[in-house]
């Protein structure tokens, strides 16, 4: 049952010589083979299986192995920077969301427009995991270009929630969250623009963390909204998330927006306890669509932190109610520009039969982008258009400033904020497809955090009608340590691992193996 291990347990086992990293990978591969046809969490897997590599003796690169991952364009040479089995990750495997470049692997962002595109370079976050001795296992499904909250907007089909296969896993890092929740991955990297790590982690009953904007390099992360995107871990427990985040944080000369700040000891923080922690509880969330059941769980979580020596503090974030509107203007504005490069002229999908350049652009983009991406490109283009820029883009920027002020005022009174990760539990596949606005409003508690660039984590704390619910901890800029301190305390109050395992096994058994 090596696939059931947390990263921490697997590292201990490999260190003790109880098993090898390759055996862990093989167990995961076998489980992916058995279950992923139903979950659809993976879009690409390491050729030949990451197991081959994990089992390979140190310093010997297995031909066609995981890290080589296929053939980069114009080169058949194996990579010189092949990772070693040493390092903090000891040869254990990781997954990447399909919007992260890894040399020689396809990077499609779950979009038809990037059909056939193979990355010629590594994103910094993946390079850091490789350098730490990690092995590439595969790329996970997502909403196209990160645009969506259900993973239904994938050109490669929706991911199913392993707690209930009729429900969405959340998004856009839905494949990553589902894979970790169903023990199809040891841990995963996701990206979070408005909640795309925290929301699916919460809806799948696992831990997800988004660091302060600028903590993790975006170099090699395919941009959705550049001022909001951050990479972060999805993991089976808080300590695993802390361990992975520590490995990928830090300034990167290849990303001018990264911050030059020391990386805190997050695992120590996660174990430090909640004594003396001032926990801010935002007022007025009921007006923002908070479900009664979620409200009760929120109250229970706050009480649990207080019981561990924390202090409850009511705080006010008056601009929160404008955040969703501002977010969908700013994120789409940036996206409309970021996605302009997919025009069929240089790489990816090119439409056939276009009569002229204009036709090539129109047809390639119409055929290549799915409905949600098209919707957001149009919305964002509008927000930036002459005559509307001031009314939309600039006003949204003002909301962003006001929101940052609200948070800054809150930090005068508390050390972290506690709020639900989502207004309700996982919804049924198809339920919100015809109602984009309902889908957007589901991000109401996560996207303000991106607008303010703050660190946050979501932790599963309860099961409601058979589905997990997650709480979110938000911290001051660069104060991931306090976020992990509160997250660790929540995890100790609400042990979730066995709950998840039993529920997921039951759901997968009930559906029956194909």
């Amino acid at each position, binding site marked *: 049952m090596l696939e059931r291990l947390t990263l921490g347990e697997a590292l201990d086992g490999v260190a003790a010589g109880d098993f090898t990293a390759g055996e862990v990978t093989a167990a995961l591969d076998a489980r992916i083979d058995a279950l992923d046809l139903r979950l659809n969490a993976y879009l690409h897997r390491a050729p030949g299986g990451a197991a081959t590599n994990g089992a390979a003796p140190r310093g010997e690169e297995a031909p066609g192995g995981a890290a080589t991952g296929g053939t980069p364009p114009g080169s058949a040479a194996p990579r010189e920077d092949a990772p070693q089995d040493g390092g903090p990750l000891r040869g254990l495997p990781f997954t990447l969301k399909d*919007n*992260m*470049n890894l040399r020689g692997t396809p*990077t499609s*962002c779950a979009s038809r427009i*990037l059909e056939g*595109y193979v*990355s*010629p*370079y590594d*994103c910094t976050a993946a390079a850091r995991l490789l350098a730490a001795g990690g092995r590439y296992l595969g790329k996970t499904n997502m909403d196209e270009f990160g645009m969506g909250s259900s993973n239904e907007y994938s050109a490669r089909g929706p991911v199913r929630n392993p707690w209930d296969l009729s429900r969405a896993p959340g998004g856009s890092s839905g494949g990553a969250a589902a894979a970790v929740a169903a023990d199809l991955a040891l841990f995963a990297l996701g990206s979070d623009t408005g909640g795309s790590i925290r929301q699916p982690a919460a809806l799948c009953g696992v831990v997800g963390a988004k660091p302060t904007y600028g903590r993790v390099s*975006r*170099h*090699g*992360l*395919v*941009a959705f*909204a*550049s*001022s909001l995107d951050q990479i972060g871990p999805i993991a089976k427990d808080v300590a695993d998330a802390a361990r992975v985040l520590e490995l990928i944080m830090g300034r990167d*000369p*290849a*990303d*001018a*927006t990264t911050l030059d700040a020391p990386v805190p000891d997050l695992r120590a923080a996660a174990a430090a306890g909640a004594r003396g922690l001032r926990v801010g509880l935002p007022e007025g969330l009921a007006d923002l669509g908070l479900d009664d059941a979620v409200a009760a769980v929120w109250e229970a979580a706050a009480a649990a932190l207080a019981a561990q020596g924390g202090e409850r503090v009511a705080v006010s974030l008056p601009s929160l109610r404008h955040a969703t509107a501002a977010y969908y203007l700013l994120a789409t*504005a*940036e996206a*409309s*520009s970021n*996605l*302009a*490069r*997919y*025009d069929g*002229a*240089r*790489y990816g999908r090119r439409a056939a039969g276009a009569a002229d*350049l204009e036709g090539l*652009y129109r047809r390639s983009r119409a055929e290549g982008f799915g409905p949600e991406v098209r919707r957001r490109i149009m919305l964002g*283009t509008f927000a*930036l*258009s*002459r005559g509307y*820029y001031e009314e939309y*883009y600039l006003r949204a920027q003002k909301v962003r400033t006001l929101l940052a002020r609200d948070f800054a005022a809150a930090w005068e009174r508390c050390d972290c904020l506690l709020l639900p990760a989502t207004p309700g539990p996982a919804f049924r596949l198809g339920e919100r497809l015809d109602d984009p606005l309902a889908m957007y409003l589901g991000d109401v508690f996560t996207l303000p955090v991106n607008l303010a660039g703050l660190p946050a984590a979501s932790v599963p704390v309860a099961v409601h009608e058979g589905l997990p619910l997650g709480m979110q901890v938000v911290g001051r800029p660069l104060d991931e340590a306090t976020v992990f301190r509160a997250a660790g305390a929540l995890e100790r109050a609400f042990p979730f691992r066995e709950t998840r395992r039993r529920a997921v096994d039951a759901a997968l058994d009930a559906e029956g193996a194909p």
Partner: protein
Amino acid sequence: MSARNAGGGAAARGPGGEAAAGWEPVIGLEIHAQLRTRSKIFCGCEVAFGGEPNARCCPVCLGLPGALPVLNRHAVELALRVGLALGCRIAGRSIMARKNYFYPDLPKGYQITQYEAPLCEGGEVPFLLAGEKRRLRLTRIHLEEDAGKSLHGGGATRVDLDRAGVPLVEIVTEPELTSPAAAHAFLTALRRLLVWLEVCDGNMEEGSLRCDANVSLRRAGETTLGVKTELKNLNSFRGVEQALNFEIDRQAALLSAGQAVAPETRLWDAARREARPMRGKETEQDYRYFPEPDLPPLVVDAAWRESVRDGLPELPHERRRRFEEEYGLSPAEAELLTADRELADYFEAAAAGGDAALAARWVAGEILRLRRETGGFPVPPGTLGRLLTRVGEGAVSHTAAKTILERLAADGGEPDDWIEMLGLARLDDAAALAAAVDDVLAAHPDELARYRAGRTRLFRFFVGKVMEATGGRADPRRLDRLLRERLDD
């Protein structure tokens, strides 16, 4: 400052003359100058001209998914040099912006440029127009990346992205030029300055310097601006002047006939000498500018700004003034000798401690000729200085000095050695000079007779003959005296 400061004349006179009568042109320019950095503005790819297409590209300048720009600080420094040299206000915090449009040679679908908060604002460029000092005010100078190049032909369009991401400054002037000749003179001065500052190689053929112009007409004396058109594809200063003349005539003809000028962009066709309108679609773009989220604000603190200022050389107009004041050169000489820094440096080194006026004449004459012939300065300035010292002392004549200069240019060496080797020391022996004069007079009896009959202009003829006979070694003043004595006997 009024428009007249930068103007060339009150009324426009196109090549046709007639059509523009009574109309005053108002001209503004936009100059794109390629900065002389080793690498591109947002990635480490090399900047070079020519070679195989698409050989100097990486994920960043190809606009591959996930690639991010990182601003090249050297490009910022070069832009700061321009801004500081021209007296611009330097923004402590300027913003990079995206200009969105679709074109195959624009790999990201947007150009990274500056829009609302440029690096430099204000400033002015001094220039000479027909010997008169003028100034043209600048609106702004900003940093941006170049696009790639579309190569049309053979039924296909190919794209070369080697130029994509090459750093540029865009220099925008106030619309205060009032003649095409003034535009030409301004551009000449600006180009000289950019090359002088070592920020741009100024090569228009390779596209290192490009210019767009906009022009409108108004009745002489009016203060409001007319409808302007923009002229593109002006790939030489002469082209700018021709295109402006053409456009001024065209607009004047329209306005004189009571018709309106359409606000449009027109492409200059240098071969046909005419400008045709671009399709409306291409000119009415909404570029949807917004701040570039991948790049933090560009912060230039006082320390950085001042360190760049400290590294500025003396500027051409400053040097021109100093040459006039310190060396007593005429404005024309000073202008000529400050055409570029190498020349100005050469002159100063040659003039050091000697007769500056003499050095100026020699550099402006013989040395510039040698430079045209050889592409350089074959005679080191110190060597020229030593030769001119001998000329000044009267040890060698000008004619002899020219001969020596040729040898110095061809074979190197020292002036004194050549003087001795070629026997070109001035003829100091009065008897020898007198003998040479007598020989010449004896050999030209007809001329002598005509001279004495009143054709006194033949004096120069006899001087030349004596000089020829003495290999240029005769002291001109002594010869003059001696010759007059003999002729007027």
